[in-house]
């Protein structure tokens, strides 16, 4: 009686140990860093399978660490690719570093960077008699006297924009309408600058 219990528990222990080291699952991480994730829909694959949607980071930067839930084994070949992207990202823009190789230890150094789709930002100027300097943060645009339109640098979808006046034209003061907003899926060309007198 005693020995049969012993045997059963020994067999169970063996089974547990074997499961823990199980062949298919492996024990090594496969991951790295990815940028361009501000919306759901960023799906990665490894060797054409193991589809994994990268969770959206909460800090709004779009940059996050990722790790495939399915572990790989030592000596496994890996090839991580972007399968599909969120609606505000250009799939063709995705750049890869260290995304292919053969696992020696945990793989945590894959780098994938995908750029957001951008839209034009601009508008009209009226009554400008001197040189006006407009900025959108670090983007600086000089608008010459007599200009009736202006164009700022393109802005990523979902990014805020705020067109402000850095320098008014000599002897004039300008005001801006529609200068603040969040970039949507279409170009913004209704920023209106009015100068007086």
């Amino acid at each position, binding site marked *: 009686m005693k020995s049969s219990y012993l045997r059963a528990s020994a067999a169970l222990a063996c089974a547990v140990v074997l499961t823990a080291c199980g062949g298919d699952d492996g024990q090594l991480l496969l991951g790295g860093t990815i940028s361009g994730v501000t919306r759901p829909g960023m799906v990665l694959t490894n060797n054409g399978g193991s589809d994994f949607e990268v969770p959206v980071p909460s800090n709004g930067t779009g940059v996050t660490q990722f790790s495939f839930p399915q572990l790989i084994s030592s000596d496994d070949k890996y090839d991580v690719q972007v399968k599909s992207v969120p609606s505000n990202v250009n799939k063709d823009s995705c750049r890869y570093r260290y995304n292919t190789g053969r696992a020696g230890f945990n793989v945590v150094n894959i780098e994938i960077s995908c750029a957001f789709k951008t839209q034009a930002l601009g508008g009209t100027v009226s009554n400008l008699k001197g040189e006006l300097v407009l900025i959108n943060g*670090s983007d600086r645009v000089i608008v010459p006297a007599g200009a009736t339109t202006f164009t700022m640098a393109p802005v990523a979808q979902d990014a805020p924009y705020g067109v402000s006046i850095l320098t008014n034209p000599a002897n004039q003061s300008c005001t801006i309408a529609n200068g603040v907003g969040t970039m949507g899926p279409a170009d913004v060309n209704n920023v209106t600058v009015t100068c007086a007198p």
Partner: protein
Amino acid sequence: MKSSLIRPALALALAASLAACGGSDKAEFTVAGSVTGVVYDGLVLSNASVPLKVAPPTTAGAAVRFAFPDKLEYGDTYAVTVIANPLHQTCEPSVPDGGIYANNADTAGRLVSIDIAINCRINEYTVGGTITGLTGAGLVLANGSTGGTYTAETPKNPPATTPIAYELPPVKFGTTYGVTVSKQPAGQVCTVANPTGTMGDAKVQSANVTCVAA
């Protein structure tokens, strides 16, 4: 007879090979390297209290080679440090391509040649100020499209009477900034004083926000 010729020949060969290792031909090492990212004047490096000025490159963005005048012998140690930064910049020993550690200090002869990496970056400072009169929830400030955002905490009830200090992410020296109200708080309109400028050598703390009932 035969053996008497071989012996002197051997002795000669031995003498010749010993001379090759002789003291007068000791290997010498130049403490040299390159600096990346220098834009402004003023960088001074030092090794063993010997200063060496490094000027910005003639082609913007190029690396600048440097070499200390004194040669080192095998086994001499060196430690290159930055003793004066360029204007508006901060320089530090950095990890060379393909390396793991900064290589500014070592022993001459451990590697075939000495090639130290130093990197300089433009100083950057935060943009901020105070927020006064905020009672509504949802205020978001932004610095253009790439300068980051600041989301104000929902005010307590009753709202604090002292102004709230805020900071937007750092902006590089010489770069413009423009603080705008990206999202107005519920029931209020906020305006920004001194919202625009070009970053100097200190943090901006004067982009003050005032909120009033809409």
